[in-house]
């Protein structure tokens, strides 16, 4: 450690001895780091949006079901706990939001068409925080309570059914005894989200209205909970598990929608590979710079060795030189990334490719997401791989014989 100040001073001075070469390399590192962070922020923004929309469409970060429900989602496999008892159990617990709902497959029919859909009997007040539909943007109105007798369907579905606001439709499903349960509803609202598939496959009615139609008393099929962050559902999951007896299934969102969970993992892998690939391109320049820096001062390295500097100190000096170069590049690259991402947080209009984006379930406005963890990852990758890349030239420099180095010509 006592050699660190002298090695650092030498490394810094040698770094700026050929300032033009250093500036070029620092610029390359800065641009590389900027592109790592900037492109990652764009990708994160896109994937986060897809996942958030997907999670919103479930909806709920943690869900409780009858153990048989996910395999056979019928009211026969409902949760046999009444609304009153559920309220008593969960109202005192600190969740961002929670709700119990009826969720069963159903058939909706207009006078022209019929479609298979998912019937959601909900408490609109309790579900508002889940945010899958902006209530005030619904054409017509959203449900007003659990006894609401209207139905809210997606605009996409309304088009397919050739129906519209104010018209009547019939919902048909099965009761717990597998008897047909049906009822007529007037369309009171049409909603539209960023995910067309969601609009086409979900219809909303009041919870109590659904319970009456399905003849299930005050029981439900699903209890859902919202945490603060879909990336970290464990605190919410633990709280739910603590309140639920073992006869019910508690699932995280990524267990229910495994493709969304996989997408998140793929994205993490993609970010890592993307950063490594950019660095590999940079590393050729870095190694070349260090090799040149060593080559042009062989005699000075010989002199230092002759004066009593140990080979390990020469190795350390070259590595420190590489680290200093990278640190300057990282500092500039990080600042550049923050400075360019911050003004774009309001969203980037990508409507030129909007159709393609919608197919992926994303919107036509892209919101870059700058995560501290991604910035740290980029910095760690650059420093770690930079360290590895500088080992070879540093090792060569430390292997010189003093006499041969001092007498080296040119």
């Amino acid at each position, binding site marked *: 450690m006592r050699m660190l100040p*002298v090695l650092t001073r030498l490394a810094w001075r040698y770094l700026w001895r050929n300032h033009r070469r250093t500036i070029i390399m620092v610029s390359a590192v800065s641009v590389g780091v900027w592109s790592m962070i900037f492109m990652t922020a764009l990708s994160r923004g896109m994937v986060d949006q897809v996942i958030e929309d997907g999670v919103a469409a479930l909806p709920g970060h943690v869900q409780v079901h009858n153990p048989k429900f996910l395999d056979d989602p019928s009211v026969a496999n409902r949760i046999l706990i009444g609304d009153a008892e559920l309220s008593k159990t969960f109202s005192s617990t600190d969740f961002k939001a929670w709700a119990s709902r009826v969720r069963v497959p159903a058939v909706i029919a207009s006078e022209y068409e019929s479609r298979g859909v998912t019937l959601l009997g909900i408490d609109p007040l309790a579900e508002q925080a889940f945010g899958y539909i902006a209530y005030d943007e619904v054409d017509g109105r959203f449900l007003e309570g659990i006894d609401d007798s209207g139905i809210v369907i997606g605009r996409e579905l309304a088009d397919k059914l050739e129906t519209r606001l104010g018209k009547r439709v019939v919902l048909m499903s099965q009761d717990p005894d597998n008897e047909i349960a049906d009822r007529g509803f007037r369309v009171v609202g049409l909603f539209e989200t960023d995910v067309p598939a969601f609009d086409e496959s979900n219809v909303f009615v009041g919870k109590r209205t659904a319970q009456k139609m399905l003849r299930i008393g005050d029981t439900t099929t699903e209890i859902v909970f919202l945490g603060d962050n879909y990336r970290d559902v464990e605190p919410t999951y633990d709280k739910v598990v603590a309140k639920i007896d073992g006869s019910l299934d508690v699932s995280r969102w990524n267990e229910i929608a495994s493709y969304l969970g996989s997408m998140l993992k793929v994205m993490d892998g993609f970010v890592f590979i993307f950063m490594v690939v950019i660095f590999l391109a940079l590393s050729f320049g870095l190694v070349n710079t260090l090799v040149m820096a060593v080559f042009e001062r062989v005699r000075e390295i010989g002199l230092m060795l002759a*004066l009593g500097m140990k080979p390990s100190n020469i190795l350390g000096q070259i590595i420190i030189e590489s680290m200093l170069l990278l640190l300057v590049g990282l500092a500039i690259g990080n600042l550049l990334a923050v400075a360019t991402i911050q003004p774009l947080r309001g969203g980037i209009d990508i409507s030129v490719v909007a159709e393609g984006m919608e197919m992926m379930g994303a919107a036509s406005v892209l919101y870059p997401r700058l995560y501290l963890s991604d910035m740290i990852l980029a910095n760690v990758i650059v420093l770690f791989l930079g360290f590895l890349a500088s080992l070879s030239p540093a090792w060569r420099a430390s292997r010189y014989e*003093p006499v041969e180095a001092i007498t080296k010509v040119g």
Partner: protein
Amino acid sequence: MTAVRCVDLCKTYLQGDQAIKALDHVSIDIEEGGFVCLSAPSGGGKTTLLNAIGGLDMPDSGEVWIADRRIDQMSKGELAELRLSSIGFVFQAYNLIPVLTARENIEFVMQVQGVAAKQRAEKSLAILEEVGLNGLEDRRPAEMSGGQQQRVAVARAIVSRPALVLADEPTANLDSETSDELMELFTELNEHHNTTFVIATHDQRVMGYAKRLIRMLDGRIVDDIQQNAA
């Protein structure tokens, strides 16, 4: 007490297909406080002998002792430690680290030795005055003349008071006046601090300052004479 002892040193280089005997069974003893010149024509073996004494180059056979330590069997790390603590070097050229100022060059060895900053500063300023380079402490080598650079190199070699100073053609790039000044400085340091000097040269003026002159030819010692220094 013996400062340097070489016993039956041999060193052969290959130059193309030809084997060149740089050291051919060389044995010498140099007493502490000695002021010795190694004189030889180019290729005579003086620099090879100097490098062997300084642990910069290993002989093919024979023994090299510095004080009471045998150095020809030491590891690179041990040799570096020995050079750092006991030997000062002055080379013919490329003597200074170009990115450091005169004062930083002088402090370099002390810094590697782990001497405290305050002590380093005091010693370096004092030695700069001693070698007549007052006011030039913040100049880099490129901003100094050859003579000034060589003085800085001498200052660096002696600042931590090594027992032995090895100088290889220290006056080769200097004019006669600067050469005389440098040799007078060496003489003064030898007399006042009892530092042992071994200087490889083929400069007659330098030889005139030596107390002992060892002449070499084709890797062998051909003459070893005590003389009255100038």
